[in-house]
């Protein structure tokens, strides 16, 4: 694989290794939990970046992948007693397949209209799930603690789940990197620059957009499955809360949409900021206000985000980082 020869491949590997190793040192559960959250953010933002940064389509409702994945996984584990691994995989495949179908439809809409329809999809799916009795309707599903037994009990289970989070994060980073250096990625970038010109150049735009949308659903769905399995509870208002997808957008823009490094960096910075805000009593209510203000400043003054700024000062870095 030519990716192996590129330094960036190993940079990602290093970051992943840091995620794996650091909480193990001294059995630091608090660090583990905060890194787990960072991993979720990085997963969501990297996959969102495929649509936003590469193809130039804003998906306001990326939470729907996370939430639906969560529901499928939790339901399979709880009501059907599937093992975790199979449930996660089913969640990923199921949500991707659904997205492919939906994608062909809504991706016929151009930029802003597509963006609006993604919000509607979340609200539609939420309304559906709230009325869907097999999934607990608006009360949701509780998982019995029994499910943690095959994983060795709650303690070890949490560690396993953490490593799975890191694996999903790693997969997301490698996926967005791999796509970026592939022919598929080149086509997506062309679509993002000028969709009409790309089509005239021969880029099969409908197929590529739908594939991108579907690909951007797979890993977030698995992450959702892990997240809600871990919490042992899922309900519509949590599963389809637009806050998380909004934060993913802020992270992408903050770090530099279209870059792989930027997204990871942005996720880390945002999580730090958020952590600080949540602790401070003045700001805890203002989480979205801060996110919104941050996004506004970025869009107005730094549209290429952090990495855009860095690459403009140090262009040679772009050869090494993505």
């Amino acid at each position, binding site marked *: 694989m030519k990716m192996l020869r590129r330094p960036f491949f190993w940079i990602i590997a290093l970051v992943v290794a840091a995620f794996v190793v650091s909480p193990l040192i001294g059995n630091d559960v608090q660090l583990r939990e905060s890194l787990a959250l960072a991993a979720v953010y990085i997963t969501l933002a990297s996959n969102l970046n495929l649509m936003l940064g590469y193809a130039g389509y804003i998906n*306001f409702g990326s939470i729907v992948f996370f939430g639906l994945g969560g529901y499928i996984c939790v339901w399979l584990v709880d009501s059907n007693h599937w093992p975790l691994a199979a449930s996660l995989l089913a969640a990923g495949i199921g949500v991707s397949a659904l997205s492919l179908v939906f994608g062909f439809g809504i991706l016929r*809409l151009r930029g802003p209209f597509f*963006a609006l*329809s993604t*919000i509607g999809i979340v609200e539609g799916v939420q*309304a559906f799930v709230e009325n869907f009795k097999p999934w607990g309707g608006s009360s949701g599903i509780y998982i019995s603690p029994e499910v943690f037994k095959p994983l060795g009990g709650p303690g070890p289970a949490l560690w396993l789940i953490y490593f799975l989070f890191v694996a999903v994060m790693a997969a997301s980073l490698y996926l967005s990197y791999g796509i970026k250096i592939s022919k598929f990625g080149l086509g997506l970038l062309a679509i993002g620059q000028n969709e009409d010109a790309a089509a005239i150049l021969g880029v099969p735009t409908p197929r590529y957009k739908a594939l991108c949308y579907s690909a951007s659903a797979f890993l977030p769905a698995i992450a959702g499955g892990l997240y809600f399995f871990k919490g042992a509870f899922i309900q519509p208002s949590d599963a389809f809360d637009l806050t998380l997808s909004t934060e993913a957008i802020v992270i992408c823009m903050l770090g530099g949409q279209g870059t792989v490094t930027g997204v990871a960096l942005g996720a880390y910075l945002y999580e730090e900021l958020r952590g600080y805000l949540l602790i401070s009593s003045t700001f805890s*209510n203002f989480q*979205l206000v*801060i996110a*919104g203000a941050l996004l506004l400043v970025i869009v107005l003054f730094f549209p290429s985000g952090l990495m855009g700024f860095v690459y403009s000062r140090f262009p040679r870095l772009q050869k090494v980082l993505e």
Partner: protein
Amino acid sequence: MFGIIASIIDGVLVGLVYGLAAMGLTLIWGVMDVINLTHGTMIVAGMMALYLLSSALGVSPYFTLPPILIGGFFVGIGLYWIAVHRMMGRPPLMSLLSTFSVNLVLVGLGTAVWGTALFNVDVSLPGLTIERYTFPGAHILAAALAAVIAGLLYLFLHYTRLGKALRAVANNREAAELVGIPTTRLLAIAVGCGVALAGVSGMLIGTLFPFTILSGDGYQLKSFVVTVLGGFGNPVGALMGGVALGLLEGAVTPFVPVSWTLVIEFVLFVLVLIAFPGGVFARRGAL
């Protein structure tokens, strides 16, 4: 049988107000290709202004209309300068993100101050009773006011210098500038008008239904549906689209639980857009 017709007629009355809201959205879109994602929140702002002015200051509900109209106008001008001005000339997705971010800030502030409290403004007006059905007076008055304001907007756009200048800018911004029209000022005015319309329609909706800070999303979606039915950039179409939506709602709501109405409207939104990418009656570049 008459029940359904009554429901439909009532829907049309409310639909006129939706049409007015959509006019605000479509005006901004038509003039500068910007989709204002603060639209729903501006509607809620109008509702809150109605509530605060009438309950706190004891102003009679319908007399809040002029201050809300004027206040909304200036808020819109502010919105232009903060979020839209720098986005002119950039890809349209950027203006989407900038208005989206302002919306986040506003909703965040709103929920921080008022939470998810439910507000209700009491408007007692004699209704119109035909057979066994009463059409609430508030609905009739709201529809009438919406129609009047829409009419005034039409007169403004077609019979005043400023209005014609707006239409010129909508049609071809470069050409308008070459002819000496101060386009930046007009873009700001367009946003001002758009937000004013959103605020006033919010005030009118506030006289009809209870609301929370988060109600904006639902009405924003309705505005989008109406705009799509009536054509982006087409105010007259927006009014007709509003009537059509009201008609649809009136016909459907007796049979369907309320939580599904929005879902149905969303599906309609997507399907219509797929079939008619510019809206059903789209006239691009024309107001």
